[in-house]
């Protein structure tokens, strides 16, 4: 009886252990698949030529596989989205966390959730129909599908994560800090920006890093508004991101071209892992403080 009971407990324990390890297994599998399928093309093309070559001509008679344009586009695009989205998201978060009346706060909370719930293809569709023609008319360029359009779309898409996370961080600031500052004669605004914000800086930094991760990983919305020509990045030109480089040629590629796409995914994956490490660093900082 006793040993039967023990057997059952052990079996159940191992089943749960196995289920727990599935997550780790998935991460390992993804990493292994990406590395194994990404390395051959890099080997054939040469690491330096691949990473720093400035021409991507995968279907030419003499194909060239340089992904510098994609890397730079992804970096510039993300930087642009951050430059545009972070100030707006940050100021909105401070307002919602500290100043807004309760009713407005609830409505805006719903709005931000809505913004987060809109599928990326819908952002892409609206960008395609409104933003792209708008840019063409406003700046008198032949085609509005450009880096600028992608930056604006990405900036809107990262807003909800930045706002939500910053609001959480700001609301966690101990009330005593703010009371002390107010008692010393600071205005509420001075208190929020010079006491609350510095106290919540780890959380806000984590929000920004999360936004970076979102922006660099977004594929479909960008694919619909950026034009997808493999140019070096320039604000009003059609460009291709790391993500869209993978997506746009996947369906018809073969041989070395296909392998090169896997290598691009590997590069993107390494970027994301770096960003994740940074995110963890900031989140730990928040827990400590």
């Amino acid at each position, binding site marked *: 009886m006793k040993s039967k009971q023990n057997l059952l*407990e052990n079996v159940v324990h191992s089943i749960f*252990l196995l289920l727990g390890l599935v997550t780790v297994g998935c991460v390992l599998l993804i990493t292994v698949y990406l590395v194994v399928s990404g390395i051959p093309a890099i080997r054939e093309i040469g690491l330096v030529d691949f990473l720093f070559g400035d021409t991507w001509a995968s279907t030419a008679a003499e194909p060239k596989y340089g992904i510098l344009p994609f890397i730079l586009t992804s970096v510039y695009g993300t930087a642009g989205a951050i430059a545009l989205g972070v100030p707006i998201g940050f100021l909105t978060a401070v307002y919602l966390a500290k100043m807004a009346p309760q009713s407005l706060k609830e409505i805006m909370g719903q709005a931000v959730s809505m*913004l987060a719930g*809109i*599928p*990326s293809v819908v952002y892409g569709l609206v960008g395609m129909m409104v933003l792209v023609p708008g840019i063409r008319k406003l700046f008198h360029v032949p085609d509005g599908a450009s880096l600028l359009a992608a930056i604006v779309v990405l900036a809107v898409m990262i807003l909800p994560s930045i706002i939500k996370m910053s609001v959480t961080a700001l609301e966690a600031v101990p009330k005593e800090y703010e009371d002390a500052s107010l008692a010393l004669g600071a*205005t509420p*605004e001075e208190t929020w920006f010079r006491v609350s914000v510095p106290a919540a800086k780890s959380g806000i930094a984590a929000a920004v890093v999360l936004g970076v991760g979102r922006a660099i*990983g977004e594929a479909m919305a960008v694919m619909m508004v950026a034009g997808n020509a493999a140019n070096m990045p320039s604000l009003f030109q059609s460009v291709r991101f790391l993500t869209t480089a993978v997506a746009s040629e*996947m369906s018809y590629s073969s041989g070395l071209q296909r392998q090169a796409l896997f290598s691009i995914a590997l590069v993107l994956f390494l970027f994301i892992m770096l960003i994740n490490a940074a995110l963890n660093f900031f989140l730990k900082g928040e827990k400590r403080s």
Partner: protein
Amino acid sequence: MKQRKLSNSRRRFLWTVRGGMYFATALTGLLTLFLVAYVLIQGIPNLSWEFVSTKPSYLSGNIGILPDILNTVYIVIITLLIVIPLGVGAAVYLTEYATNKRLVSVIEYAAEALSGIPSIIYGLVGMLMFSNTIGTSLMAGGLTLVIMNLPTILRNTQESLKTVPQSYREGAFGLGAGKWRVVRTVVLPGCIDGVITGCILSVGRILGESAALLFTAGFAHALNGFVKGLGSAGATLTVALYVYAKEQGEFGVAFGIAAILLVLAFGINLAASAVTKYYQRKNAV
């Protein structure tokens, strides 16, 4: 009492940040309003009973989205069926069984890494892992989505397991129950709210997903039953939107689907906050 005047520089600071905050919040609000209104205004005129109840036909030039709706339902069902046991099991292991701190942090780190990976990479790996072995199909897409949504279910279940009072477990142990019995009768019933919240969030994510499905589930519009559907390629609503807008230039259809997706997203948000509120109130009592 006369109010003391602030110095000029302090006043300037005050009005700058106040203006900035008002402007930013108004911009965020108006942007959301514009997006929702624009999509609904463009989309709703394209909706009709025929649109949602027929399949596309090249002969008559008719475009209907019934197959896409069904595909979405199928993929949601199959994903949840697989991901719930995996996610809940992992969460139970982490909170109830695990004694090795290092193993716990490895699993938690892995879950975090999974939630940071962009969907296009899931699409690529899903294609290599599943589509190349079992063929481009809803099943392959569903399995890809399982990996994607694992952290969501895991984290939400874990959060709600933490709210099950330790004394319940101790009480059950004190009555002589074995570990498995405690988990089955005390712990698992306590985590239902977390599982439900996780499911709602996952459904939202599956509805919005496109990049991970494009190369794993494909973009066919065939009308199939559940079992046959899982074995064959099919577009979900989001993928269909992309294909209609980008590849076929059918913007009316695309906006119609976008309007449906928007309403669904709104419903999911409402459901998620309603469930959270309900359980908060229940736990508070």
